[in-house]
């Protein structure tokens, strides 16, 4: 269990939002991003519940309702593949296979080095360049083997060091 000092950033985020329960989603999004592992831990959820003066079940209600939250640690970069209709008819299934091969993991898993998690996302509105995916706020489209290798390498080599 991390010591409370390490979780000081959680309190900072809560303060930024004036300890307001109506900002719970915004707080959780920021805490998740700041975690470095793209998740909200039980310890963080406890702190948030205490500081907002709400039951921890209310925090978990949001955490488990919204698809963008995870309560389990994920990779530093979460690769989110679109499988909605527009990408689906442009062979997004093949893109899943290409990623699984390139990363040596299955959909839903995280690479051993903790760098990448592979998962699905809702439609990201990138239908113009389908099949598409996103990492953080960055959207990548017209995916093929070469492009996928290039993207993964750019993250591995640290050429892109932030999600935003």
């Amino acid at each position, binding site marked *: 269990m991390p010591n409370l000092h390490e979780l000081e950033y959680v309190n900072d985020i809560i303060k930024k939002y004036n300890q307001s329960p*109506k900002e719970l989603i915004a707080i959780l999004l920021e805490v998740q991003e700041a975690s470095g592992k793209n998740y909200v831990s039980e310890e963080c959820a406890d702190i948030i519940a205490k500081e907002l003066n709400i039951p921890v079940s209310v925090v978990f209600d949001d955490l488990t309702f*919204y698809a*963008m939250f995870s309560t389990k640690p994920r990779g530093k970069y979460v690769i989110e593949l679109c499988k*909605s*209709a*527009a990408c689906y*008819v442009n062979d997004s299934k093949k893109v899943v296979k290409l990623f699984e091969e390139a990363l040596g993991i299955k959909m839903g898993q995280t690479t051993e080095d903790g760098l990448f998690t592979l998962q699905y996302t*809702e*439609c990201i509105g990138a239908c*113009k360049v389908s099949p598409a995916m996103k990492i953080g706020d960055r959207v990548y489209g017209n995916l093929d083997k070469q492009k996928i290798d290039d993207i993964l390498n750019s993250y591995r080599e640290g050429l892109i060091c932030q999600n935003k």
Partner: protein
Amino acid sequence: MSKQVKIISARCGNIRPDSIEDYVNAGGYTSLEKALKMNSADIIEEVKKSNLMGRGGAAYPTGKKWEQLFRIKNDPKYIVCNADEGEPGTFKDQLLLNQDPFEVIEGMTIAGFVFNSHDGYIYIRGEYGVSQKIMKNAVETAKRTGYLGNNILGTNFSYDIHVVSGAGAYVCGENSALLNSIEGKPGRPRIKPPHLAEFGLFLKPTLVNNVESYACIPYIVENGGDKFSKLGTESSGGTKLVCTSGNVNNKDVFEVPFGITLRELIYDKEFGNGIPNGRKLKMVHIGGQSGSCFPEELLDTKLCYKELKSKGLSVGSGALVVIDDSHCIIDYLLCVSEFFIQESCGKCTPCREGNQQIHALLSKFADGTAVNEDLNTMMRLSKLMKTGSFCGLGQTATAALDSCLKYFRNEFEEHMDKKCRAGVCDFKGGVK
């Protein structure tokens, strides 16, 4: 000559979206200046005359919605913009948010003035991180330059806009679910009545409109409702943003007049520009995942609420997902069904369990183990979901299935005989 009529997307791509000077130089904010000198009832009258139908999908008359809220005397009132553009194949609101954010802000500000509201909220889905940043930046710029904040343009009117992020939930596109989400709660829909005009955000009177609807307001105020109305057909004034995607050469957003045919949108060089790879059209899924699929025979139908309705179709979100003949009906419907299983909020049984059962039955067709009775069971379930579900999500989740049963029933029957004309299902346990 171009068939596009660019009214609300005219500035997109032609101005720097982060520059309020560009926006003003391109005619922006003249409508707000005009509106601030008008009285609220007159503005609502213009919106009514415009015959603008809500662009989020439900096509409720915007003027009527405004009039209903205007009659309610409680304070404060909130202005909410639904930017939870989650319908797969839809990316038209994203275009406006990213390329002409001040137009959306201006529309919301005029609405704020009409209802003497001091707070507007724009709820942008979590997947649109870039749009959120552009919008937050635009709101700050508008505040700095006197177009938002205290005493807007030197008047007594003060109004602020808050940018709120979703966190991944399609159901939040439903207005009452969206309001719950702004309040920090899970986005489960509320029971109606009471209507949101009476008890909306924080249980106060609230106006909720789509991004595209707000973007129409500056044009309506500036040019009058009649002029906007004349751009469209009898069943809706103005223009419509449509999105082509899937198996089509040109995947993009187009602003078109109502009355254009679906064939033009898919085959014209200026629009979809036909099907790639020498394939043939199988069907088009119109209006989002909650819309219907239609075959080639209906391509000459006009984009018009009334005419589409007469064929059992709807404009919906403006999505046109084109599907070529390399795809299998059953396989595609499994994709649609998986989407609704994922997105059902779980609050009501018909939607939560119904989608699971539909998926199980479709899987039998993919396996080649389906029997005639399964077709009847699917139709019965679909009817139950349509009539028994709590909100629009469950009520429309089987629209695609129903339409495919209507137009492609022979392919369901072929699957009972272990035949898949697209060669997608291998009948050894489902889809290849």
